[in-house]
């Protein structure tokens, strides 16, 4: 099936407008629009334009290196990758379960991660659009502008992010790319000094987070016509939930609700993700398109992240955030909320929740002392081929993150498969772009402010395009690149794609340059 506005029928006759690079997001992406003579959009695509190849070069590395290596996928959510890999390798070393101390220290690390990343996204990256307007003056539309115009808001954002980063430092050893989690457990406790430091700031942070939720919901209340409909579209939503249906970020089972809010997949263990999800590749972007296998690519795509999590769970296990969740759900008047901009509101509810959980964990003596490591080689989980195997799934700030590894007898990784959060939202972000294009590109002159509307819709998903460029799937591009080295690559292309690479020669104006 072709999605509306994904591919124009006669691209050669249209005018190309590019937003390149998409800014105030993490990573490298661009948007291309093809416009007809009336300035109406006929094609709109979000392209992920880089690849780095992690899945491939991790193969052959000793498994104990991997939780540290994979953090370099992303400097904004390194802990998410650190822990997803650690969880996968817990199974490789037969540490099911890990110790109480290890579980709580990792959870503390992760909730610090979600808190700092969500705060960064809202305050440093998106708040300029929300506070100044989508087509406000371009040179002021950034965190510096916010610092000058709304110093109080900017300061709270900086301090919230700082606190989350400090939680990470206290547990992982370093704010960016730490080393605290290892296959089978953790390698350090929280020190008494760090514990005191974090405890001292906790109350203030809870207040700041409550203020942030208030800002986000007031934006909706003040302009519901904009906030409820901008870039909106209906979709299914996927997330982890706890066994009892509570919001869960570190460890749980997969749940999917459809666009009407009905639960269509529930209690799927994370180890079974391959039975649930498949991915499709399209020729114009490096990022794959995942979908529910049972439904198929046309309608089986879904959204992940705060909007999905806050609505997929039955409740939130901390009181302040639960109160805010109820208010959020009430806003939908019995229907799931599909508004793209509601991501911000849900994200701030999560910030409040993470601070509450951090507070609970700081009161738990297990983070200061106790057994750190577990594991029994005899209990290692094994693949059908006899190799040790583990899958780690975690709710990263942007959504469900999946790491999957197999390890040979020599302790070297033989297989690595990663599905990162932003990839799940690929179709959704493209739909958001097209929704905005339909709504706003109605023949009016193209201005910088108008183009920023498209970016506002993308930003709401907090895309981590750096994470999304991990895959080697992009390597095929080398085929095109090789001009200088054409024969060998051409040969590979033909020998493996016979039936599916040549047909695309008919695709519009591609591959011929």
């Amino acid at each position, binding site marked *: 099936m072709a999605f509306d506005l994904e591919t124009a029928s006669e691209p050669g006759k249209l005018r190309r407008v590019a937003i390149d690079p998409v800014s105030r997001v993490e990573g490298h992406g661009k948007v291309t629009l093809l416009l007809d003579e009336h300035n109406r959009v006929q094609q709109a695509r979000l392209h992920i334009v880089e690849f780095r*190849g992690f899945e491939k070069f991790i193969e052959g590395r000793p498994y104990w290196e991997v939780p540290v290596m994979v953090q370099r996928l992303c400097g904004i959510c390194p802990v998410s990758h650190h822990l997803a890999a650690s969880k996968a390798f817990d199974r490789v070393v037969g540490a099911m379960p890990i110790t109480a101390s290890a579980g709580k220290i990792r959870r503390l690390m992760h909730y610090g991660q979600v808190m700092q990343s969500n705060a960064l996204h809202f305050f440093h990256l998106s708040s300029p659009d929300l506070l100044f307007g989508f087509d406000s003056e371009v040179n002021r539309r950034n965190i510096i502008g916010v610092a000058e115009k709304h110093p109080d808001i900017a300061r709270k954002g900086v301090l919230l992010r700082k606190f989350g980063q400090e939680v990470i430092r206290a547990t992982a050893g370093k704010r960016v790319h730490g080393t605290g989690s290892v296959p089978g457990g953790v390698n350090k406790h929280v020190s008494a000094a760090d514990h005191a430091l974090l405890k001292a700031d906790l109350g203030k942070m809870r207040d700041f987070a409550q203020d942030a939720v208030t800002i986000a919901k007031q934006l909706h209340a003040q302009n519901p016509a904009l906030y409820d409909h901008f870039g909106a579209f209906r979709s299914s939503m996927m997330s982890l939930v706890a066994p009892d249906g509570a919001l869960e970020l570190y460890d749980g089972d997969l749940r999917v609700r459809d666009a009407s809010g009905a639960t269509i997949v529930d209690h799927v263990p994370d180890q079974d993700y391959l039975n649930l999800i498949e991915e499709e590749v399209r*020729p114009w972007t490096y990022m794959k398109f995942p979908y529910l296998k049972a439904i198929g690519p046309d309608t089986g795509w879904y959204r992940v992240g705060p909007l999905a999590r806050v609505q997929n769970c039955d409740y939130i296990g901390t009181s302040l955030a639960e109160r805010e969740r109820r208010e959020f759900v009430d806003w939908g008047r019995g229907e799931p909320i599909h508004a793209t901009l509601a991501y911000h509101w849900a994200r701030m509810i999560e910030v409040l929740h993470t601070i509450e959980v951090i507070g609970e964990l700081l009161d738990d003596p297990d983070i200061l002392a106790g057994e750190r490591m577990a594991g029994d080689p005899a209990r290692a989980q094994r693949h059908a081929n006899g190799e040790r195997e583990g899958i780690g799934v975690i709710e990263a700030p942007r959504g469900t993150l999946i790491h999957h590894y197999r390890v040979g007898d020599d302790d070297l990784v033989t297989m690595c498969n990663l599905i990162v959060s932003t990839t799940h939202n690929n179709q959704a972000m493209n739909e958001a772009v097209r929704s905005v294009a339909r709504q706003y590109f109605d023949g009016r002159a193209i201005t910088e402010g108008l183009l920023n509307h498209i970016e506002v819709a993308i930003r709401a998903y907090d895309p981590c395009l750096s994470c999304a460029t991990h895959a*080697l799937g992009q390597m095929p591009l080398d085929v095109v690149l090789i001009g200088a080295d054409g024969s060998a690559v051409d040969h590979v292309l033909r020998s493996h794609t016979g039936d599916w690479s040549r047909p695309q020669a008919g695709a519009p104006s591609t*591959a011929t340059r």
Partner: protein
Amino acid sequence: MTMDPLDIHHAPRKLRVATVSLAGCFGCHMSLLDIDERLFELIEHVEFDRSPFTDIKQIGRCDIGLIEGGLCNAENVIVLREFRAHCKTLVAVGACAITGGLPAQRNHLDVGVMLTEVYHTRPGLSASSRIPDDPELPLPLNQVHPIHEVVHVDYFLPGCPPSADAFWAFLNDLMAGRTPHLGHGLLQYD
């Protein structure tokens, strides 16, 4: 004739700083933000040109360019050259810009073999998946390169990422017109 006294109250021009992440992970940019509240002091002295933190898409004339990440595709090379052409002082920030970093782990792999394996052995791909080949996608380089192989680099700020304190000391030296010098403890490589 008497000379006007020097106006000691004039505000010195703010330094204009551009930043970019090429084949990096944004960790260096995050570490720059880890200066925390010092950010408010920093923006008293600098203004940002093209950067992931602003919506300026085309770099203008700048005093300082901070480059995170190495070169993995043709677009990276173009952006790097634009930065060199517009920045008086260009800084390679972090392991990837200085050595290629972790992404350079792919340098020993054969492109054809990787292509084969990714599309035929990776689990969970639909049967209809095909090779991305759109001209909108920049062409990857055969290998990942550090930036000094392509342009002259004035300073190298090591670390994965450099610490917030290292950024702070480095930028303060540049803002004061001193040759940057990272003292013991600020120079680290992990």
